[in-house]
């Protein structure tokens, strides 16, 4: 099981992403962004799945900022939106 965190530009983006994950049967938790990941105080979605991210048809909405893979105490950037 691989753990990921998705961060967003708005709370609404996080809620939409969470709903999309739940439709695909992916386990999620919505929470504040961890401080060691970002200095922003927004909302993130922590999610877990067996498959690789590329194998899942996750909807990457316009409010999505980045997705990182949680690797112990560090984060590996998987996706970042265009600035």
């Amino acid at each position: 099981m691989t753990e990921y965190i998705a961060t967003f530009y708005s709370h609404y983006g996080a809620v939409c992403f969470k709903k999309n994950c739940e439709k695909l049967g992916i386990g999620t938790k919505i929470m504040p962004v961890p401080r060691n990941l970002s200095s922003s105080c927004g909302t993130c979605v922590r999610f877990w799945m067996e498959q690789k991210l590329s194998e899942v048809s996750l909807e990457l909405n316009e409010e999505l900022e980045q997705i990182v893979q949680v690797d112990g105490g560090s984060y590996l950037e998987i996706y970042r939106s265009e600035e």
Partner: protein
Amino acid sequence: MKNEKKAIVAAGLVIGVISALLVFFGNPVNMGFCIACFLRDTAGALGFHSAPVVQYIRPEIIGLVLGACIMAMVSGEFKARGGSAPVTRFILAVFAMIGCLMFLGCPFRMILRLAGGDGNAIFGFVGFALGIFAGVFFLKRGYTLKRSYKMPALEGQLFPVLQIVFLILLVAAPAFIHFSTEGPGSLHASVWIALAAGLIVGGLAQKTRLCMVGGIRDAVLFREWKLLMGFVAIFASALAMNLILGAVTGTPFFNPGFAGQPVAHTDGLWNALGMFLAGFGCVLLGGCPLRQLVLSGEGNTDSAVTVIGLMVGAAVAHNFGLASSGEGPTSNGKIAVIIGIVVVTVIAFMNSRKKSD
């Protein structure tokens, strides 16, 4: 996670001590820090309003922005961003300030007033919490001001540089800068003590993301108490310091009661409604006035626009007779707060995705 919690509480304890000490060094009572009051004083010093008792370029504000800026640059977190509904943010900020000046303080001062024994702040706190609940209601209905975008570095650096210009104006004191000779604006710690206090608190607030609005919002949305614990720590340490300073100096720094509190009035309903407007507006802005200063120091130009909106709101509040005084709220102020609650509600509704559901 535990380290994050410890860091927030430790920062809160330090900030509470600094806040109490600023009063000892000359700031108005229960006003070691007040972002709303200090932005209002700075606006007055620049001549944006002509209330003679509240005109002084507050070094604490300069220090907060620069402290956050330095900390963000050192940790590689300075990022120039913007473009997320700046005009809407400006208007929300104007009304958030009008709410704060109905109550006579920002959320930060609300905590310091409680730590000084000012019971009127209890009404403010209740209204503030209800305002945050109102904002969270719209967040759950899909409220968003849309994303921000990367900006040229210079765009993010301008607001911190502006603070340096303010510092030069304060120290040089040219004739066109106003200085109160009586009232709250005339009461202040020395420039360098106030600046140092601002730098330390700005750095700590950047590192810990301290935010009064975020604290209650996260507690309601996620049952996450970390941020709120920071402000509990500020309250506890400011209260302890007030008691210690009172015992050491023989001058009471903790005066429990309602009547005769410094820079405060006893109208509970309007204390609550003022902070309801401030809390509601600040949730929609994404943070309390302190957090907006810190974000502006990190290069967030939307927050810089918000701070400018807060200053304009302060000028409007004094020019139009909306700000309360120790005598109580004004009729104009009451009308403005009601208009503000309506405007903020309309903004919240119009920017909620589920409004047509």
